[in-house]
């Protein structure tokens, strides 16, 4: 059943309502970085959608509300030769945030099943395989305790060619179906109203971090070794023992 066609694209939010509703979540957003650091979690935010202007607006909005000392934006346009000559997930692995940090991906590993699929860059079996690989990748992130938030910006498609628009809709639909997992669900940001979109994104970020703090999410991985434990382990270790 098509999910996207049932979405109401006429949502709007006045500037006054935006400010009023933003008030209560401001405090959560301000504390977000220290909270992530305390819990030892990274946060990965993915912004996908066909409208690049809207993506950029939301990147700007996130930047205004999050502490720059723990926050980085990655755009696939900035990728280098080194990224291009390796596995398609490599540039994203390389740019993952460490514990306590936030990375915003303005376009992401989903490009393989969105833009690259529509452009016909790969044979079908390649982008089909990517759904599974992407889910495996995201599961490794959330197994570690990473918070993963994926936003699908669903508004009027700026593409002039109706035939391409159909392909794009199909790709988006299939992506949402195959990669909405419990550990890394998609949040659909509908319509073209900027205030509505901003509030929806900021609220989702605030809510997820709140849920993590209340224990609604699995704890972060325990690969961290306390210094005293390391010392004890060193002492136990006797070289040459056979």
């Amino acid at each position, binding site marked *: 059943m098509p999910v996207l066609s049932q979405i109401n694209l006429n949502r709007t939010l006045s500037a006054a309502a935006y400010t009023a509703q933003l008030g209560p979540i401001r405090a959560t957003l301000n504390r977000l970085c220290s909270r992530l650091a305390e819990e030892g979690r990274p946060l990965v935010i993915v912004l996908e959608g066909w409208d690049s202007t809207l993506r950029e607006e939301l990147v700007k909005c996130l930047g205004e509300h999050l502490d720059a000392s723990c926050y980085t934006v990655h755009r696939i346009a900035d990728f280098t030769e080194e990224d291009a*000559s390796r596995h398609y997930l490599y540039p994203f692995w390389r740019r993952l945030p*460490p514990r306590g940090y936030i990375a915003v991906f303005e376009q992401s590993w989903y490009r393989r099943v969105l833009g690259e699929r529509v452009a016909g860059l790969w044979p079908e079996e390649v982008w089909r395989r990517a759904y599974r690989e992407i889910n495996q990748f995201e599961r490794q992130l959330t197994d570690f305790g990473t918070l993963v938030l994926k936003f699908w910006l669903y508004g009027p498609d700026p593409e002039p060619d109706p035939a391409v628009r159909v392909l794009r809709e199909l790709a988006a639909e299939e992506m949402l179906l195959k990669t909405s997992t419990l550990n890394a669900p998609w949040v659909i940001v509908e319509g073209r109203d900027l205030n509505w979109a901003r509030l929806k994104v900021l609220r989702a970020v605030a809510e997820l971090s709140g849920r993590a703090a209340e224990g609604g999410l699995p704890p972060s*991985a*325990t690969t961290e070794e306390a210094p005293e434990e390391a010392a004890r382990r060193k002492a136990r270790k006797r070289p040459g023992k*056979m």
Partner: protein
Amino acid sequence: MLGELDLDKKLKRKEWQQRRVVLQERCRALLAAAAEAGIPLMIVFEGWDAADIGSSITLLSECADPARCKIWRVRAALPAERNYPWMWRFWCKLPGRGEVALFDRSWYRRVLAERLEELVPEPELPRAYRDIVEFEQMLAADGYLLLKYWLHISRAERKRRLSALAERPAGRNLPFEEDVLSYGYSAYLQAAEEMLQHTAHEQAPWHLVEADNRPYAWWRVLSTAAEVLAQRLPQAKGAYS
């Protein structure tokens, strides 16, 4: 699996010296062809602490273009590396198209050393095996060529080599202490057997090398590499074999 290996296999040094030239020449040609074809190559070495992985790596790296070949010596994760999912540090070491990455120990540390040092809780072990297999399958599907060696030595040979290393004059010692296992032979053997069972798959099978006799191990490592590369490069097979 490892118990069935015949560790008495030997090759005379003199014979090795003769074979070495031809074999390395062949590997050089095949590696050049792989680079030309844009194949990213990952060669993984695991095995006992005294199995002398280093010399095998040297032999292989001599055959590769130094500008396109990296040797990664994988030991315990650094504190900064522990701030990322465990596979992160290996993804960061991926070779590009036409490049070679040689791993002196690898992501398999997770289910060997780290498991035995109790850094990986037992319930997380199946997850580690799964992460490893998924990682390798992803790479293989993308055209990466993975070559995995297990260098096996007997308990007696290991004991002999470790005491020989310990008796070397100070200053000439390789910094091998950090590599020496802090747990017994049988614990490591069991973990290794389990690892081999869980992580052998079609795209990246294990090559078990009987390494009690060094020249034999060298010959096996090089000839296996040549064989696998030749299989992968059918056009090269005719030209170089």
